[in-house]
């Protein structure tokens, strides 16, 4: 497959791994954060950690929109879904996310009309086909997903569709990175930057990381060679004492991003004053809501919502996992009470979640062994 097989050559990967190892300075260790859940998934799926020298630790970031959604928002989603007049449409990953009232899948089992879609445009089609029902789409995701929400809103308005609304939970990546950089818990050496988010926003928004925090950033693709090349680029910057924003993923990321996508997002959505992230707490201007001109499509206005803050289950340590403070398998309930089949926390729900990635690909031996060796 074009754009897949070329980026999975074992021979090239082995060469890159050697070049990465050659850049390790004696007596130094490196903590590199991959921001995206997609990178976390690819790293474990392809066993990339096993190719890296022991001195390099990959820390998993908060870039999984499913994982960072707080319980209270999921409770509100279920409250909307349980209304008799509503067909509640959502990406499949949100179906199993636990709330204080169970999951959307459990709501569906109780009789709620919950349907999985692959695009908000599919939800709009359902609205056209069911004029006597109210169709709500659970809009969630980073800047990569926001353009599909924006286009759907513009089409809904242009077509005058009156039985369609969005429960908007879009988040933006830069404020979360700021929160992590200001967290005293973490001492990071550099960032593997988001790939497809950067397709939309470009590479300029990360410049503050290099300028204000002195950390290198390399925006990376998602294939194994993309990620290894990005780690090599980060290590080369650290060896040269440089800190810049570099773009490894030039085949789809431009410095300025996609200006048309940015324009449709700005036309339909605006930043919220603040938004709660699981694990990171409230972060100012870190999420989007619909603009007042689109209030007829805003489920938060159309339906009465509790909007309550709901605490995570006590046993769940997703917050610490999301900040990279503990590794997934160090959580008290990892793989025992919390599994992908019966998740307690969001990190185990999404396949992009750090816990699910560890669990599904069984990458425990090397890490556990390394920690055991460190503590002895």
């Amino acid at each position, binding site marked *: 497959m074009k754009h897949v097989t070329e980026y999975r050559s074992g021979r090239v990967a082995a060469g890159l791994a050697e070049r990465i190892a050659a850049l390790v300075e004696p007596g130094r260790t490196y903590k590199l954060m991959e921001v995206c*859940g997609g990178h976390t998934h690819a790293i474990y799926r392809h066993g990339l950690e096993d190719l890296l020298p022991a001195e390099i630790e990959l820390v998993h970031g908060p870039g999984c929109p*499913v994982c960072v959604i707080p319980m209270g928002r999921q409770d509100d989603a279920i409250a909307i879904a349980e209304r008799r007049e509503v067909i509640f449409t959502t990406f499949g990953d949100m179906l199993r996310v636990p709330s204080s009232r169970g999951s959307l899948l459990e709501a569906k089992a109780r009789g709620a009309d919950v349907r999985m879609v692959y695009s908000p445009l599919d939800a709009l089609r359902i609205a056209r086909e069911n004029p006597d029902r109210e169709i709500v789409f659970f809009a969630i995701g980073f800047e990569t997903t926001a353009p599909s929400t924006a286009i759907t809103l513009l089409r809904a308005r242009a077509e005058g569709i009156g039985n369609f609304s969005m429960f908007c939970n879009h988040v933006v990546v830069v404020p979360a990175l700021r929160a992590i950089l200001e967290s005293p818990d973490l001492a990071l050496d550099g960032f593997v930057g988001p790939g497809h988010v950067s397709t939309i926003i470009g590479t300029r928004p990360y410049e503050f990381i290099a300028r204000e925090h002195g950390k290198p950033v390399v925006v990376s693709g998602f294939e194994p060679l993309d990620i290894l090349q990005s780690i090599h680029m980060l290590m080369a910057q650290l060896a040269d004492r440089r800190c810049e924003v570099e773009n490894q993923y030039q085949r789809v990321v431009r410095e300025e991003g996609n200006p048309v996508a940015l324009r449709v997002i700005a036309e339909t959505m605006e930043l919220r004053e603040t938004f709660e992230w699981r694990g990171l707490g409230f972060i100012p201007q870190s999420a989007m809501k619909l603009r007042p001109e689109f209030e007829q499509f805003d489920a938060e206005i159309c339906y009465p919502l509790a909007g309550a803050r709901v605490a995570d289950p006590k046993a769940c340590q997703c917050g610490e996992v999301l900040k990279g403070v503990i590794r997934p398998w160090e959580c008290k309930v990892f793989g025992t009470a919390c599994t992908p089949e019966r998740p307690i926390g969001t990190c185990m729900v999404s396949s992009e979640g750090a816990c699910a990635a560890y669990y599904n690909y069984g990458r425990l031996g090397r890490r556990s062994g390394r920690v055991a060796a460190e503590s002895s």
Partner: protein
Amino acid sequence: MNDDRCITCGDTAVVATVISLDGTSAVVESDGVRTEVAIELVGGVAVGEELLCHAGVAIERVSEDLP
């Protein structure tokens, strides 16, 4: 497309080839699977071109950049 990943996250965006065009939509194919995507964000698309697609929308053209 890409069932082993989470669609909520934009990281699942896939490269697909344009098969046919119809106004603001195109039929694209990836790994033998055909689907319709909105093309407002990429403009001036031609049949045979490769697009990065996510959640029913083409978000960027793909340029050659092989390792």
